[in-house]
């Protein structure tokens, strides 16, 4: 297994290729341009299809088409571009197609700027487009995880026939770290896609659609979607816990933000302050169970949610705790990132 120094964006691209992605369509936007550039050469070299689309809307609809035809397909963009893709993501969810969408977040609203942010959490975890649906959302916190999670995302997308999103930020996309690249392309779990469009030779025609006009049909379909989402919520919660056994103050942060929070926890521990960290890895499904368990068994003084936004994930923490524990918040967005000092001061004042 070789170790290489690459950026988060490149790690995502290589991770996708190693996960058996054979179709990529995208449109340039900062801060994820290394990803599309990497795909344009490396994916094509390996016999995959790369298309620089005319827009983010076209790109996501190309992913819809490639996925309908049965291949592992993905697109990537950053916040304003992801807003444009919401139409396609809703159709992908509605047609129950597997696909992977990468959002390397920048600050908003509107054109905002190109600094890292986490202000697309609501959009990512609530559906984002029209209708009652969810994407499975994974939040890597290192360049290694950026590589590793692509495999997880494609596997989950295929398993549940559902869009999966990688939610990173500009800092993670741009920074370089050593990454262990495991060559796994020939070990891809082949899920049989009997629903895919391949031409109707030897079988009845397949139809990929999200349109249900007959009375009762859409409601029945939506109930099957909800059943699937309940199953995902039960089985796919992922998080990393740090010092949770005796923590009196539990910090909650994901992605890049969690790395700063982790440093703060270690400093606080060195000063005798019993703090811990929950780092949600799946943002949807939100790792509810650990919060519920800790609130009952440990009765911590407080949960402190730290985000590069003005308070989005904190709503999930409050929802899951149902008032059973104190929840505090620290957040900045638009260029600013909560610093280790700010976190430590906030904890000391609790």
């Amino acid at each position, binding site marked *: 297994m070789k170790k290489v120094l690459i950026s988060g964006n490149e790690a995502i691209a290589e991770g996708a290729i190693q996960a058996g992605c*054979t*179709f990529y*369509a995208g449109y340039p936007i900062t801060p994820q341009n290394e990803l599309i550039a990497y795909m344009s050469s490396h994916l094509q070299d390996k016999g995959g*299809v790369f*298309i620089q*689309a*005319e*827009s983010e*809307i*076209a*790109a996501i*609809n*190309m*992913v*819809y*088409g*490639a996925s*309908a*035809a*049965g*291949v592992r*397909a993905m697109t990537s963009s950053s916040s304003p571009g992801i807003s444009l893709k919401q*139409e*396609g993501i809703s*159709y992908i969810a509605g*047609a129950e197609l597997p696909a992977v969408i990468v959002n390397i977040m920048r600050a908003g609203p509107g054109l905002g700027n190109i600094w890292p942010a986490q202000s697309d959490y609501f959009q990512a975890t609530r559906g984002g487009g029209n209708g009652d649906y969810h994407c499975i959302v994974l939040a890597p916190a290192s360049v290694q995880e950026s590589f590793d999670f692509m495999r997880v995302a494609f596997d989950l997308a295929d398993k549940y026939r559902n869009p999966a999103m990688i939610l990173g930020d500009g800092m993670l996309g741009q920074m370089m770290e050593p990454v262990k690249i495991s060559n796994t392309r020939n070990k891809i779990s082949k899920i049989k896609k009997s629903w895919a*469009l*391949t*031409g*109707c*030779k*030897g079988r009845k*025609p*397949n*139809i*990929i*659609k*999200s*349109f249900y*006009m007959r009375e009762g049909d859409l409601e029945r379909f939506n109930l099957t979607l909800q059943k699937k989402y309940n199953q995902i919520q039960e089985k796919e919660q992922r998080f990393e816990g740090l010092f949770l056994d005796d923590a009196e103050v539990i910090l909650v942060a994901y992605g890049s933000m969690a790395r700063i929070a982790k440093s703060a926890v270690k400093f606080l521990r060195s000063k005798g302050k019993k703090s811990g960290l929950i780092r949600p890895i799946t943002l949807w499904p939100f790792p509810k169970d650990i919060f519920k368990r800790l609130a009952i068994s440990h009765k911590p003084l407080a949960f402190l949610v730290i985000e590069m936004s003005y308070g989005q994930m904190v709503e999930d923490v409050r929802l899951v705790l149902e008032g059973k524990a104190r929840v505090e918040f620290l957040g900045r967005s638009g260029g600013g990132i909560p610093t280790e000092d700010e976190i430590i001061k906030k904890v000391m004042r609790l």
Partner: protein
Amino acid sequence: MEKIYSHPKSLRNLSTHYCPGCGHGIAHRLIAEVVDELGIREKVIAIAPVGCAVIAYDYWDFDCSEAAHGRALAVATAIKRVRQDNIVFTYQGDGDLAAIGTNETIHAANRGENVCVFFINNAVYGMTGGQMAPTTLLNQKTSTTIKGRDAGLHGYPLKISEMLALLPGVKYIERTSLHSPPEIIKTKKAINKAFLNQIEGVGFSLVEILSPCPTYWGMAPKASLDWIRDTMSKEFPLGRIK
């Protein structure tokens, strides 16, 4: 006696939901007949539009995908790129292809994607209740141009086929009509040519089909056919464009 005409295998034996005098049923059937005659039914993947023909997949008996409004050619691009041995076509109306999907249309054409496009031009939005389409004629009354389309307010009928003909990636464009049996036969020939182009790897082929919409033209079916012949085809001349 030799049987020379029967129901196409590629068309399910169903009554359609289309209005009396609508052209969609004829266009669906022509495509199904050509697919059968070329023996490509088991290779075809069709992209249905958003509009009156949204459930074309209920009528055709081969693999089909729905696409979001206007995005059929983005979907078709990807399917053809990953399944080059399949035969991929889109079936799109004027709003789908020439308004909301203009971007996808122009760029798929410009990339020279080796797909077929069957473009139904009826100069009006049917499914949503007869609003102005990009191809609505000047002075034509619609539910959003109740005094008739006014160039100063609404712009001109968009000749997207002529625009697309300028692109080097486009290999074949023909405008046909469904207003009479001879024109229907010409339409079938054009559909056949478009499919042959794809089979032979020639490239992007589009057939624009002028099609009657008696309901939203406010005309009887026969008067609609006459209107195509006498009025609509003056704005959208029939024949080979490229």
